[in-house]
């Protein structure tokens, strides 16, 4: 755990060392102030010449006790100067620690974001968004808070405690031990209590989760609740949870009350013990009045921070848990192009030879796929759900890599082509369209580094979305998503198409990307695409025969295999899957005739 932690803070080593030094100095200044007061009480005010080595030399340096007695302001200024030293060190400690912690936290956030983007396609297909976000935010925050505050607190408290105890020993060994008499008990009880408190906190959180589930289900299911007239039933259900949560929170808070009660008692007991014993020693003449004051100050510098330290130590495992959760993401291997990736010219034939592919070993998705596409051809793919048609397209962008066989683009083996380069040249409109919460203009421009507005309009016209956009109040500046308009499924798909068109790809793939668009619009888009897409090899996946029929070649896929291929006319002359679908139209007409 410590090694992991040290590795994490290493880049900001200098800031933390500076902060720790400042903490050390601040601790020295804090403990120096009572000594000055002792000096004043023991020597200056009563006019007793200093007998102690250090105090004597200080007194002499300042012109002797008698001089100081006449000029008491010197002592006052000394107190202020020490405070100034303490204040500046405390400031530096806080400032350096903050910069270090925030720098690390930023780097951690950046690293997570970047890494997440580079994780393989497959990871994102299966990803649980909520959990990952939790790790990137809450866990990063837990680590940050530890570094920024608790980590530095450990040093501050440890320095203060050790130096205070050391100084106490020089004054009176016996009293020094009396001063730490209850410290182990304070520390142990604080440590133990913190454990109990955090486990009871978990119970509270659990109950809170149950309560919020009841509320959330009630609010999202408001239609069901009302339609079934179950308001009373719901209220009773809520009451039980609300009461449970209340009782458990109270139980938790009572633990906290006990912790503070007991530890206040112990800390005050320690202080009282020092007071009684020190005045007794002073009465005996074993120590001076000033020493009593010093001990009273130091014991305050010991007990309260040590109680705090125990809580920090007890909370440390939280930070460890968070670090591990973050590392789990960071250690998931990112996508790589492989060694010696090339960036060849891709304009040419596409050849699949005996390609096999499976997500999991036991479940083959594509089985011995072979076909050839000439440059500029329009290829349509028809197949049932799960026939492997989307997977086939994903292979072309190296979103997944095939296991057996070979795929060549213009004679170059796909597996050796650099992924980023390939994806810049091959445009795909995914089945489930995603738009970013930016303006429509920005969304479409996203596909390329530099895009002219006119290119955007052209692409939007081809995708038959231009007039829709113009009709929005803010036109192309309309924001998409939560902060803006809600686009219909068909509109989203068409924006996504426009975005892909802007890329001017060598190869274009439409993965069932017009499913939410009505048949007429679909046909218009197809016609436009045909006009503009001269020379671009295009794949269209669809379940609509009207979308497919104009293609140069239609591939029919069933169960991971290509079971039929040919032009529309060829396919309807054979009684296969394609024919069956083609025939639905006839069925409909028959039905109308039958029903008269």
């Amino acid at each position: 755990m410590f090694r992991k932690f040290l590795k994490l803070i290493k880049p900001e080593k200098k800031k933390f060392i500076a902060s720790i030094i400042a903490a050390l100095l601040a601790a020295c200044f804090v403990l120096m102030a009572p000594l000055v007061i002792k000096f004043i009480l023991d020597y200056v005010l009563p006019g007793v010449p200093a007998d102690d080595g250090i105090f004597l030399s200080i007194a002499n340096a300042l012109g002797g006790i008698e001089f100081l007695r006449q000029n008491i302001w010197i002592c006052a200024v000394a107190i202020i100067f020490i405070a100034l030293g303490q204040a500046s060190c405390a400031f530096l400690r806080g400032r350096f620690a903050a910069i270090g912690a925030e720098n690390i936290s930023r780097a951690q956030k950046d690293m997570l974001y970047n890494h997440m983007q580079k994780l393989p396609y497959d990871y994102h297909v299966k990803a649980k968004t909520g959990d990952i976000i939790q790790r990137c935010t809450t866990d990063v925050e837990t680590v940050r808070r530890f570094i920024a505050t608790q980590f530095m607190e450990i040093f501050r408290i440890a320095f203060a405690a050790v130096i205070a105890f050391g100084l106490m020993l020089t004054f009176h060994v016996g009293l020094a031990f009396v001063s730490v008499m209850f410290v182990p008990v304070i520390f142990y009880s604080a440590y133990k209590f913190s454990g109990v408190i955090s486990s009871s906190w978990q119970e509270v959180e659990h109950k809170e989760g149950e309560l919020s589930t009841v509320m959330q289900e009630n609010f999202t299911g408001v239609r069901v609740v009302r339609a079934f007239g179950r308001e009373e039933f719901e209220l009773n259900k809520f009451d039980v949870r609300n009461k449970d949560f209340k009782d458990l929170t109270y139980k938790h808070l009572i633990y906290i009350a006990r912790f503070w009660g007991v530890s206040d008692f112990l800390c005050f007991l320690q202080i009282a013990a020092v007071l009684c014993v020190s005045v007794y020693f002073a009465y005996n003449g074993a120590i001076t009045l000033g020493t009593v004051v010093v001990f009273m100050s130091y014991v305050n510098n010991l007990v309260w921070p040590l109680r705090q330290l125990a809580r920090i130590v007890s909370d440390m495992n939280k930070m460890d848990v968070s670090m591990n959760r973050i590392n789990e993401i960071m250690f998931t291997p990112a996508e790589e192009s492989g060694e010696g990736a090339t960036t060849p010219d891709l304009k040419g034939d596409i050849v699949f030879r005996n390609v096999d592919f499976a997500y999991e070993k036991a479940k083959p998705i594509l089985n011995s796929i072979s076909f050839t596409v000439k440059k500029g051809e329009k290829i349509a793919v028809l197949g049932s759900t799960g026939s492997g048609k989307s997977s086939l397209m994903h292979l072309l962008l190296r979103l997944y890599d095939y296991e057996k066989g070979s795929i060549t683009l213009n004679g170059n083996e796909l597996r050796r082509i650099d992924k980023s380069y390939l994806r810049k040249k091959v445009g795909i409109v995914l089945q489930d369209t995603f738009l970013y919460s930016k303006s429509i203009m920005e969304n479409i421009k996203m596909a390329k580094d530099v895009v002219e507005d006119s290119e955007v309009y052209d692409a939007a016209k081809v995708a038959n979305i231009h007039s829709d956009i113009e009709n929005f109040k803010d036109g192309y500046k309309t924001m998409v998503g939560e902060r803006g308009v809600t686009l219909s499924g068909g509109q989203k798909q068409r924006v996504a198409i426009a975005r892909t068109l802007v890329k001017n790809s060598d190869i274009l793939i439409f993965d069932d990307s017009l499913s939410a668009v009505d048949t007429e619009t679909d046909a218009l888009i197809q016609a436009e695409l045909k006009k503009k897409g001269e020379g671009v090899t295009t794949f269209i996946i669809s379940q609509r025969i009207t979308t497919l029929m104009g293609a140069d070649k239609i591939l029919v896929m069933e169960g991971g295999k290509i079971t039929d291929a040919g032009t529309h006319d060829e396919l309807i002359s054979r009684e296969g899957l394609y024919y069956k679908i083609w025939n639905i139209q006839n069925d409909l007409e028959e039905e109308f005739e039958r029903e008269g």
Partner: protein
Amino acid sequence: MDHFQEENFSKKLNFGLWGSLLRYAENAKKECVLLTLLNLVYSGISALLPLAIGYAIDTFVVARDMTTFIPFVILLIIWVALSGYLTYKFIDFASIIEVNIVHDMRKAGFVNLQKLSFSYFDTTPVGWILSRMAADIQRVGDVIAWSLLDMSFMAFEIIFFSAAMILLNWRLALVTLAVLPFVVIISFYFQKKILKNQREVRKFNSRITGAYNEGITGARTTKTLVREAKNFEEFGELSEGMRKASIVSATLSAVYMPIIVMLGSITVAATIYFGSGGVMSGLITFGTLTAFINYIMRMFEPIQQVARVLSEMQSAQAAGERTISLINTKPDILESDEVLAIYGDSLNPKQENWEPIHGDIEFKNVTFAYKTGEKILENFNLTIEKGQNIALVGATGAGKSTIVNLICRFYEPTEGEILIDGVDYRQRSQAWLHANLGYVLQTPHLFSGSVMENIRYGLLEATDDEVIEAAKAVGAYDFIINMSKGFDTDVGEGGNRLSVGEKQLVSFARAILRKPALFVLDEATSSIDTETELGIQKAIEKILKGRTSFLIAHRLSTIKSCDKILVIEGGEIVEVGNHKELIKKKGRYFNLYTNQFIEENEKKILG
């Protein structure tokens, strides 16, 4: 309209609001009084320690008089024990107050939410409501229990400390009291600044969370567009913004605390400077001087706390306002007093007075517009006889659901009336209507709990056999029995452990169980696979027989057999008739039918 938008925070502290929030502590009134008394006692006690130290120094050390030493030790131990106990009691009382406020406010909110109309839920995101009910109420409870009441302790402490100092030596006390205003001003200045800055940090934080969310959900698209570098660049701006704001925030604290420490030391120095003459001449004892130093060290703490609490209250004020507004929002659909007297409301229904329902429905010159002004129906007339099945077809957003919502009285007509069995439905209670309603939604909603409990939701007094019967009737029995615990299987939050199709079957069984006179099926079978669909189709036909029912956008076979088909477009009913009549018309229904026929059959072949 934008009632759920975040308010800004620049408002002045509103004590009236906090007063009205304090009302929710009614069930812990006793504890509030006790806590205040306890604060008085405790702060008085805590002011004794410096005095005790001063006494010990003067008597035992300086005067070397040990006669009272033993009683002193005993009193000190009692003091220690009392302090520990009072700390415990303080937290105990504050806890009781906190949990009561939170509990009672949540309950008030929940009760009101059960009454609020659909128009509220249509315009208010569930997430917004939830954070009011969870985080905001918690915050208000915290602030009242721990801050507002805590303030009395701090105020007492300041008073007692000042009094003790004045009694000890009023001249010297003036020195300390002269510094206090500076502490107050500086504390308020910084606390305000710190809070403002923390809000800035939080804003960045939520944007970063948003960026992660988009980064993850859009990761696949990002890959296909090769946008990784650009996205990262944009993210970097956010994380850099947060870094800077956080450093500013931490620096403010790093400046503030040392300044307070400095002021403390300056006061100590001044006290020593002004007090030394007195000590030397014997007017001021050593004990008094140390007591003063002690008081000074502790005096600043409560002032800082008061400043913190006040600025915290200011920032929690928005939470308080939002919560109060949620609790006080009035529903749009209100029952008249006469109706309430006879039929009761949804939380206290008077079922003994409910008439049996027959099932005739009539729309009489109904006009309906949403609050936004969007007109959906105008002068709409329609008569439905008991047992008729009505299909509503048309594109999404055409207004099909509005008609159903009006029938269910989730909304009321803006003009005209809807008669059920010849009586305006506003003359009977919503609960009466809903008790006779079976409702199956497009997105099936289940509640955490077992399958059995979920089906029984339809009719709470149903026996296990009746539940099983209902499950069989809709063809859900087989899949339920095949799950690990059969009918006792937990469906998970919102029914997440079941597939959408399974959820629909369960919600279907739930609706059937209550044998309602009116039935609404809102695209209820859209996600069920073809095979299950055929089974359920028969069940639907059986159930619809003899019940007035409404079907929205359904499979063609169901629509075809309906008594009336309403084709709705842009909020208007453009065609009415049965299947044969409408097909002959070759109008909109004909087109809809043709498209859906092809789609359904393609789906049958391609799966």
